[in-house]
């Protein structure tokens, strides 16, 4: 909502000398978000004056144009000669002239310049050149006698008027009006607010025949009429300037007047061309398939939930949202029916969403309009059309329906103090509530049991809570146990609960009065074990040299083709968004790899070469079977466990994964020698790094899973179940995604890991060890992990540790299809110094075990 300070000041006694900025700050204190304080004059500097055209000569030019060579009195001793291209003025009329040395909005500097054979000593301005309107067809002509030549045009046009730009929260519909802003300013500054006080005619249903078939959707429909409007009457500059300041275009007098009054009163209005109405107006829900062409020229197919205004021809307006084209005000309209209705906010909200048609009117109806302001708004419209359009007020005032019934709220007198943590006595509570327009009466606690707060059907809040537990007692109030019965004003439909009233009181007392007290929580357990595991795993990867990334979880299904996933691969079954940011990425990731690999490519593109990155985050897995949306469950009380379970069933599984990707050197080359390229082994080791954080050991076995290289792919198992895959990527995938050669990657289901139990301390033997090496020749296809396991089993209890330290294959010396695996074994006994014979016997047992399992032989 943008509104001129002068407009606000018409309704509130602003303190003398208050600057627009100070007004803005006062409004911020009571909860309005003032985003900017600006003025139309901000872009204008230098002489901008009122001038009177004394005479002019029309001079045809070679290019076919006719320019006017004008003599203009700008209040100086001599008139100035100014060239003007427009013709919409007569001699003797007042115009706005900008003189050499001035600058107009957009940095347009004015100087005396030679044009069309004359030296133009300034320029006559259009509304658009002044930045106060769109009209560029002609120059701005001021009303006769509204000023005299030489007057500062900024003052005359009200351009020095500051404009407040205010973001209005959804609860403050009444602040989408000058009336509401003025009331807030009054409360913020403790100065008097002046509401409209004009006399209204008695309702006689005589303005136009109206029926309301849907009194739920429309609990009040009011109408007035005017006749004999001069369709050519222009909008006065004062109204146009305020509309422009409010961010609205000037269109025609009737439309401008309805917009002007909407801004002023908060009541959206609609003007029908009476000549184009067919019979009585009715208000009802649309029939399925009914059509309406709205003012924007779009043919809209209506929904049975849409509220419409109709005449005998069918729908003529989408109620509260936008009028129809068939009864639109035109350049010939002379007789007008004005509508000011009160629509059901939710119905309007739904229509806006359904037709994707936000409008200024709907914005106000959605947030709640004062049902008692319609008469005032209609009267203002009629008066302005009479004053500026030469119209006559037609007799009659139609009012159908009473509007919503007032609500009453029971408010314990000390509730505000209790919630604010601030001593606020009952007198202050009453005074502040009255300041926002509430009617406050005192009732006793006994009476309150019969009291209801009808807005939501919940019972009124009863006696106050004993505040002596928890974080200490609230400050005393003067009337503990006292109870107010509060009737909020009609313009505050947002006030329905005691808490709403508390906010009104506390914001006017001032949030800055609230003390700062740290609450004392009961002793907690800190991060959960699972959260700690996540942190240590993530730290471990980082310390191993990986940089963390956090990618968007949006997925392009095309990447799965690049991955070479089969058609029935689980990873292709993804959750789809109805309104994705990009049509290319409409799905939610089922794996971290697509994002991680794209990230790798981006980093390479930016000049990084040696890369190791990781991500830890959720993937989103649709349910096995399609789940219907959960039933709508109310919020008046806690849902049943069955209802909650029904909701929970629709929420997809979202396990946390961790993934790595590497390219380039994992250990860099340098003055120390060669670097080491990253590869499949780093990917597997990254998985082991995660497992170590969880203090478990992963089993590794050869796999063949796209997008990995079929010969360099490891399945990672935990307790026999596959929990991840690691290895080098398939060369085709690397080529398709433009990845660096030998890009390697790992992905694990992190949720498969549990927080480790307390570590078990080892028992250390201080007897000397016996160190023996062992080289076994085995068939190449036997995995090293299996040989290692056999060695461990065979060597038995005396084996303290074993490490594979060399792999060697040489068909000439070992025979083809064989390789040698060399292990360093360390034997030690707990209770004695081990003899070489004992250790050798254990080693021989290890060899025997490997021989039995794989035909292993001791390397000669």
């Amino acid at each position: 909502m943008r509104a001129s300070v002068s407009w606000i000041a018409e309704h509130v006694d602003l303190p003398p000398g208050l600057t627009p900025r100070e007004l803005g700050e006062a409004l911020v204190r009571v909860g309005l978000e003032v985003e900017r304080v600006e003025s139309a004059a901000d872009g204008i500097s230098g002489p901008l004056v009122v001038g009177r055209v004394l005479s002019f000569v029309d001079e045809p030019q070679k290019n076919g144009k006719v320019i006017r060579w004008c003599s203009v009195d700008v209040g100086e001793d001599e008139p100035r000669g100014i060239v003007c291209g427009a013709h919409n003025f007569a001699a003797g009329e007042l115009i706005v002239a900008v003189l050499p040395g001035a600058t107009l909005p957009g940095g347009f500097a004015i100087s005396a310049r030679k044009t069309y054979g004359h030296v133009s000593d300034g320029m006559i301005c259009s509304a658009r050149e002044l930045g106060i309107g769109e009209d560029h067809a002609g120059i701005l002509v001021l009303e006769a006698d509204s000023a005299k030549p030489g007057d500062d045009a900024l003052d005359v046009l009200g351009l020095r008027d500051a404009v407040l730009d205010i973001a209005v929260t959804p609860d403050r519909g009444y602040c989408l009006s000058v009336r509401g802003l003025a009331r807030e300013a009054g409360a913020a500054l403790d100065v008097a607010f002046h509401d409209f006080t004009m006399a209204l005619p008695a309702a006689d249903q005589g303005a136009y025949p109206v029926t309301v078939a849907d009194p739920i959707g429309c609990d009040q429909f009011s109408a007035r009429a005017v006749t004999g409007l001069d369709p050519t009457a222009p909008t006065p500059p004062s109204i146009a300037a305020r509309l422009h300041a409010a961010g609205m275009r000037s269109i025609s007098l009737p439309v401008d007047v309805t917009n002007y009054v909407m801004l002023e009163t908060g009541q959206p209005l609609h003007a029908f061309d009476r000549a184009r109405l067919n019979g009585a107006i009715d208000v009802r829900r649309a029939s399925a398939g009914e059509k309406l062409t709205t003012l924007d020229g779009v043919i809209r197919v209506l929904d049975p939930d849409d509220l419409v205004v109709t005449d005998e021809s069918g729908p003529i307006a989408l109620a509260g949202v936008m009028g129809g084209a068939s009864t639109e005000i035109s350049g010939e309209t002379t007789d007008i029916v004005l509508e000011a209705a009160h629509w059901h906010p939710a119905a309007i909200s739904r229509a806006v969403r359904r037709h994707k048609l936000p409008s200024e009117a709907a914005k106000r109806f959605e947030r709640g309009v004062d049902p008692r302001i319609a008469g005032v708004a209609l009267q203002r419209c009629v008066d302005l059309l009479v004053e500026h359009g030469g119209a006559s007020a037609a007799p009659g005032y139609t009012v159908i329906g009473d509007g919503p019934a007032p609500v009453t709220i029971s408010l314990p007198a000390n509730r505000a103090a209790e919630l604010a943590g601030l001593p606020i006595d009952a007198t202050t509570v009453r005074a502040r509530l009255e300041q926002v327009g509430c009617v406050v009466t005192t009732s006793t606690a006994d009476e309150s049991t019969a009291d209801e707060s009808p807005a939501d059907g919940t019972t009124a809040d009863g006696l106050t809570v004993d505040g002596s537990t928890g974080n200490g007692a609230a400050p005393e109030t003067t009337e503990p146990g006292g109870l107010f019965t509060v009737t909020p004003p009609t313009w505050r439909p947002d006030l329905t609960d005691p808490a709403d009233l508390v906010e009104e009181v506390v914001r006017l007392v001032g949030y800055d009065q609230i003390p700062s007290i740290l609450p004392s929580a009961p002793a907690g357990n800190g991060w959960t074990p699972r959260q700690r595991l996540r942190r240590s795993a993530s730290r471990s990867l980082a310390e191993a040299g990986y940089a963390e990334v956090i990618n968007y979880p949006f997925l392009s299904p095309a990447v799965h083709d690049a991955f070479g996933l089969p058609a029935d691969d689980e990873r292709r079954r993804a959750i789809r968004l109805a309104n994705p940011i990009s049509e290319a990425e409409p799905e939610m990731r089922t794996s971290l790899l697509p994002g991680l690999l794209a990230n790798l490519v981006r980093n390479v593109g930016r000049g990084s070469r040696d890369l190791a990155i990781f991500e830890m985050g959720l993937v989103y897995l649709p349910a096995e079977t399609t789940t219907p949306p959960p039933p709508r469950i109310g919020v008046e009380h806690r849902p049943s466990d069955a209802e909650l379970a029904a909701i929970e069933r629709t929420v997809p599984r979202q396990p946390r994964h961790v993934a790595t990707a590497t390219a380039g050197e994992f250990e860099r080359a340098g003055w120390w020698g060669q670097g080491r390229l990253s590869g499949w082994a780093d990917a597997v080791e990254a998985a082991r790094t995660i497992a170590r954080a969880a203090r478990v050991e992963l089993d590794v076995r050869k796999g063949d899973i796209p997008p990995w290289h079929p010969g360099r792919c490891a399945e990672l198992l935990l307790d026999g179940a596959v929990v991840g895959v690691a290895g080098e990527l398939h060369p085709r995938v690397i080529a398709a995604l433009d990845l660096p050669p030998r890009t390697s990657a790992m992905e694990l289901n992190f949720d498969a890991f549990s927080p480790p139990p307390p570590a078990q301390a080892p028992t250390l033997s201080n007897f000397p060890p016996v160190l023996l090496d062992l080289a076994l020749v085995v068939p190449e296809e036997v995995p090293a992990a299996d040989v290692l396991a056999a060695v461990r089993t065979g060597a038995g209890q005396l084996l303290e540790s074993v490490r594979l330290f060399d792999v060697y294959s040489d068909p000439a010396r070992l025979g083809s299809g064989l390789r040698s695996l060399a292990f360093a074994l360390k034997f030690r006994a707990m209770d004695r110094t081990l003899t070489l014979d004992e250790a050798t016997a254990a080693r021989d047992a290890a060899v025997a075990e490997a021989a039995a399992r794989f035909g292993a032989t001791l390397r000669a």
Partner: protein
Amino acid sequence: MSGANDPYDPKQVAALSPDALAAGVAAARRAFDQASNLDDLHGAQSAHLGDRSPLALANREIAALPPAAKADAGKRINAARSEVRQMYAERLALLQTERDARVLVEESVDVTLPWDRRLEAARHPLTTTQELVGDVFTAMGWEVAEGPEIEAEWFNFDALNIGVDHPARSLMDTFFVQGPDGSADSGLVLRTHTSPVQARVMLARTPPIYIVCPGKVFRTDELDATHSPVFHQLEGLVVDKGITMAHLKGTLDHMAEAFFGPGIITRLRPSYFPFTEPSAEPDLLCFVCRGESVGNPDRPCRTCGSEGWIEWGGCGMVNPRVLRACGIDPEVYSGFAFGMGIERTMMFRNNAADMRDIVEGDVRFTAAFGMEA
């Protein structure tokens, strides 16, 4: 070698004369002194202290002496040999010291050479900032609660007093999950805030509740310097007996100081959120100018636009309707909630200028943060 019964040979016995011994000692001294390194000294040691050295040979002659002369000659020769050993030990120590000093010089290296073999550890500042949030609050006994990112609309909206037709529902710029029929009516959304976690915790537990919920949230904003369709929030919730707005203010002040340093406090401005009533927006005292730029054109502050305060999120007392929907009796308990953007907080705290740097995953950006933001 001469035996005890060998005939006495005066010529050989001359080797035991004092002069001869003195000459042997002098020869050894010369040899040791001339040895300029340990190898030479080793050779000299063999020549003058070894089995074939003059003194060793002289020593053997003692056996040939008459018993009366043996003691005297033995004393002389022992003194001479002892002197030579002493000389050798001294020379050896000297040469070893010199050698050690020389080796240390020879082994010296350029200690300024880099050792950047490994890639740098780098955790994402959004992760570490969220951990910092958790650290600050768990230190006060709070817990860190989390929930799903694809969320039921009921938790994301309804339970939080954002009914189907509430204007705030359409203001949230929500991503909707497509239903099986292709419509947006799946009942699921990408959560627009972490507040559904609060609802889940309230439904699952009885007060007292002291939780903070950091996490990923989604809004249909295009990526630019200050917006991202995917961002992170931290929200806090307290439900207990006797909780007031003063406790909310105290908590925000504590967090502001923990993040931005001593003296950086907050102020509350009235605002509106469906799930809180009364509601407020917390502003952070500008941690750059500490408010001193206000009305001071000579010292403008770019961080706060010389306003002195910076918008930091939303907060308020939990709406009794929300408590009721979550099974908590608002006549017994009250609570507060607050929420702010992690990115925004991080941009302030770490002086990051552009949202795109935070979300694009350029390792050069992340590397600057190391293990803690």
